[in-house]
């Protein structure tokens, strides 16, 4: 496999895009913007996979990550204090340790990449990656593939159980209060409803967290 000049240029652009957008994920104010930066990073890596002639994986990456980041953006809006980036915010802890650890991981792994002696066996020119992947998935590695499917099904069941409101020991949100508008503040929303429930069910909404 001898890459052309256009491939090299595309690789440099995509590599810069992947790293820069990956870095911006943790710098940007807005959580939704952060999830779109992560999507950009994934798409750049998908593009590099296509350059490496792993077309199936690259395209699968595009579709999978587009959907995944949409879900992530939705969750951001649901759970984050600052979904739209209206106020500048930075939510980090132990930042110095984290920076040192990240740089150390990068240093060690790139030392392995630079100093390591890997076998030089590039793709043969007549190799058909998608066909060979299909043969592998539905042939020799059928068991691996099917196991992944069963694990995904198990995950789906587990996720439904975990996020269901009604569990084995009663309602999942029993005893909880709506979150405050500011940390530690008065509960926001549903005040009337919780009052009524308190009257009916014997006052379970006492559990305030500080």
């Amino acid at each position, binding site marked *: 496999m001898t*890459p052309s000049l256009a*491939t090299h240029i595309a690789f440099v652009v995509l590599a810069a895009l*992947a*790293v820069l957008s*990956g*870095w911006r*994920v*943790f710098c940007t104010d807005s*959580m939704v913007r*952060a999830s779109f930066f992560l999507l950009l*990073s994934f798409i750049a*890596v998908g593009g*590099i*996979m296509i350059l*490496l002639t*792993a077309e199936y*994986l690259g395209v*699968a*990456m595009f579709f999978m990550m587009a959907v*995944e980041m949409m*879900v*992530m953006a939705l*969750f*951001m809006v649901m*759970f984050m204090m600052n979904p739209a980036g209206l106020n500048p915010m930075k*939510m980090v802890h*132990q930042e110095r340790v984290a*920076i040192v*650890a*990240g*740089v150390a*991981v*990068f240093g060690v*792994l*790139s030392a*392995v*990449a*630079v100093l390591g002696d*890997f076998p*030089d*066996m*590039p*793709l*043969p020119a007549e190799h058909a*990656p998608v066909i*060979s*992947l299909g043969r592998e*998935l539905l042939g020799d590695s059928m068991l691996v*593939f099917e196991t*992944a499917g069963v*694990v*995904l099904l198990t*995950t*789906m069941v587990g*996720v439904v159980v*975990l996020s269901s409101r009604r569990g084995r020991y009663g309602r*999942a949100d029993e005893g909880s209060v*709506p*979150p405050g508008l500011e940390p530690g503040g008065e509960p926001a929303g549903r005040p009337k409803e919780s009052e009524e429930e308190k009257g009916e069910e014997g006052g379970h909404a006492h559990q305030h*967290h500080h």
Partner: protein
Amino acid sequence: MTLTTLLVLAAALIGIGFYGALSQQSFVMLMMGLELMLNGAMLAAVAFWAYSGAGAPEGQLLTIVIMAVMAIEMALGFALVVAVFRAKQADTTEALSELKQ
């Protein structure tokens, strides 16, 4: 585009993801750090497949397994975030001092 540059790029993605997973307070941002690390792992797997595996299909298979792991991580992570949020009204790691209700 050589194996070394690809692996250095993967190392950069893994390093940034590690920084994010360690430093972010919010659960969802923490998961984004983990995903970035898996992104680098996938890139490294494909690079090895293309440059030093003589195109053995197991390299692509490994990448598909990592993709499945990513989907599982995200689905379970979000379910746990929902469960923790219901129980404790917490969306940051520091709001939790114990896992038991």
